[in-house]
């Protein structure tokens, strides 16, 4: 069968977009969506669906797109994923659905992510669209802690199964990492807001400004607040620092702080918005994951003259998605591979330079990647901002206030493959269980936990 060439999505040109916060890929036109949908082989045993952490019925929705039935396509996606416009944009499809696509064995795989985005965007432009069927009220109440992707997926599943769902969010806006972490140019906040609005339309209650662990405890949720089950999907929530000298100088940021200022607090619109984040002249970002790419590209857009991504291994080991790396390079981010920071130095309390040491690759470590080995060659890089994007640790607020919730030695919550924790009635998933991962893996964990919670609630 002839499958034709994969439809290329239009993008904002690199020299323009590097200085604005508008979205980079612009989405498919109606014609492109149909042409791309026609490339799908309609496999009898769709491997793409098996590779999707939330089992979106991919061939089915693509079939609807091919026939121009976008409404039906939206309903098909919604049966398994309440966040199509989000996931279509930020999932690492190349490692999941598209990585298994049969068309991809010989040529380029069907652009499943782009099509999911197309369907999600179509639906989001139509708030009057009906909603999927909801089971009759079960009389059971579930508290979801954290409104990131895992919490939202779990909430969407549980509400459709007839349970009453309240999502508690510590920040002032729902979405978790989707609003504080991922930048506007990669995931417009209006997209998150409309996927969240879809959930509230289904009946999910969202209460912001509640920090579970402080404002309420898990025991109080199960006690006086009257919930039958709790899903903890709070993310990792504690930035890793490098623990080197000079890290408290002004100009040194965790990626979480840098991105939260820009994204959640809209510092890129300062002084129209009140939270500041001055542009750096020369910015060094440490780390090689998606968060590091987001930080690099945000720094450019805020007006930095030079942005360096400093990574201690080589290009091959970069954990970021290839597309993010490509976007960053096109925009002018310079990569400094095989370099690790030793200390920061400054004057009058402000960052002026970072000393880095050249590395070489040694034996593979626990992650299977070749580990960096110091060479002793040092040099100094002038910089007035440094952003540390080397991962996160487990935030202790919930676990410290829930004594019977078992944690591992690094403080992550111990949960089985269904998200069940050591505490009856409490499930957990996403980064607070696995350590830092991706949006869709968190969503997948939310899905599995929701199934297990449903089973539990029926047994009560």
């Amino acid at each position, binding site marked *: 069968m002839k499958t034709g060439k994969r439809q290329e999505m239009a993008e904002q040109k690199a020299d323009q977009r590097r200085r604005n916060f508008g979205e980079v890929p612009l989405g498919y036109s109606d014609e492109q969506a149909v042409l791309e949908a026609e490339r799908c082989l309609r496999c009898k045993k769709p491997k793409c669906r098996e590779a999707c952490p939330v089992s979106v019925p991919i061939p089915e929705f693509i079939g609807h797109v091919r026939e121009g039935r976008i409404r039906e396509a939206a309903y098909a996606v919604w049966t398994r994923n309440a966040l199509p416009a989000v996931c279509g944009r930020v999932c690492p499809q190349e490692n999941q659905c598209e990585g298994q696509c049969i068309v991809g064995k010989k040529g380029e795989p069907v652009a499943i992510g782009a099509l999911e985005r197309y369907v999600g965007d179509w639906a989001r432009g139509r708030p009057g669209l009906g909603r999927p069927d909801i089971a009759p009220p079960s009389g059971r109440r579930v508290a979801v802690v954290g409104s990131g992707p895992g919490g939202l997926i779990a909430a969407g599943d549980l509400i459709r199964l007839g349970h009453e769902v309240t999502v508690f969010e510590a920040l002032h806006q729902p979405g978790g990492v989707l609003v504080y972490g991922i930048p506007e140019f990669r995931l417009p906040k209006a997209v998150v807001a409309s996927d969240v609005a879809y959930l509230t339309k289904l009946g999910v209650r969202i209460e912001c*400004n509640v*920090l579970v662990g402080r*404002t*309420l405890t898990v025991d109080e949720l199960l006690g006086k607040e009257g919930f039958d089950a709790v899903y903890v999907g709070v993310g990792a*929530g504690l930035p890793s620092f490098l623990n080197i000298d000079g890290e408290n100088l002004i100009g040194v940021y965790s990626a979480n702080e840098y991105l939260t200022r820009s994204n959640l607090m809209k510092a890129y619109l300062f*002084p129209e918005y009140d939270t*500041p984040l001055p542009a750096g002249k020369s910015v060094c970002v440490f780390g090689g994951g998606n968060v590091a790419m987001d930080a690099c590209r945000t720094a450019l857009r805020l007006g930095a003259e030079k942005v360096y991504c400093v990574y201690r291994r080589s290009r091959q080991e970069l954990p970021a998605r290839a597309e993010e790396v490509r976007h960053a390079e096109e925009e002018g981010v310079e990569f400094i591979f095989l370099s690790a920071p030793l200390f920061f130095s400054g004057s009058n309390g402000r960052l002026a330079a970072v000393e880095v040491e050249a590395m070489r690759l040694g034996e593979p470590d626990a992650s299977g990647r070749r580990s960096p080995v110091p060479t002793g060659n040092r040099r100094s890089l002038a910089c007035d901002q440094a952003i540390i994007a080397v991962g996160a640790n487990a*935030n202790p607020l919930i676990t410290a206030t829930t004594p019977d919730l078992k944690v591992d030695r690094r403080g992550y919550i111990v949960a089985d493959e269904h998200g069940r924790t050591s505490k009856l009635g409490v499930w957990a998933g996403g980064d607070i269980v696995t350590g830092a991962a991706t949006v869709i893996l968190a969503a997948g964990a939310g899905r599995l936990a929701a199934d297990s919670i449903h089973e539990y609630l029926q047994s009560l």
Partner: protein
Amino acid sequence: MFEILSRQVLAQGSVIVNEIHAPRVAAKARPGQFVILRANERGERIPLTMADIDPERGSITILYQVVGRTTALLASLDKGQAVMDVLGPLGSPTDIRQVGTVICVGGGTGVAVLHPIARGFRRAGNTVISIIGARSRPLLIMEEKMRAISADLQVCTDDGSYGHHGFVTDLLERTLRTLGSGAALAVCIGPIPMMRACCRVSGDFGVPAYVSLNALMVDGTGMCGCCRVSVDGAIKFACVDGPEFDGHKVDFDALNTRLGAYREAEALSYSRFREMCCRDEAGR
């Protein structure tokens, strides 16, 4: 939205007191904890330590000086209007136990933060000796409230317009000398130079000191690390590990420097706010 139940002005208009309806916070808050507020949709998130907590009314009281855009914005809100977001209670509560004699030292608006802590120590069966100070008499706040919970209250002003002419450290030193080894703890809350000087004095007498740090914050949940401070050479987050720390181990210089990180931007933001207010006034 969190309704402002009352608004009071102290210290010749330089200090504002707001009682805010925040039942979830009030039900849980304990002395030493703080909240993060956002005045409106475009507002910054700022931390303020609670001056009082009333679980029955479901309210908390905050007290602040107008020093920039966000505090000016909060100060402009009347009773009946609302603060957009209030998150709390945040931080670890003060470790209040029966230890004997506790010296509570407060400077400026720090006295408001100190009051519930001092009251807590008093209720836990301690003898509370309080020392409060301000630049000048009209700026001194909460004198009577502090007197009511203290076995002894000493007052000073920088300009000598009331009480002892000098700094709280003078009085702290005198008190520690009088008490000999009788003081179990000093709690010092106020501007950084004051806390640093108090810790120096209490250190000379070998008396432990608690201080409450007002680091810059964004989320207040431990997620961003903006509020990191150096305590005993280690990075601590004021929002979750604090805001109270062993004052003898805090690197006050580093804290002071970090507080100035956004001085230019803050000045710009505040001047824009004042211009806007002027235009509004002129338009009226």
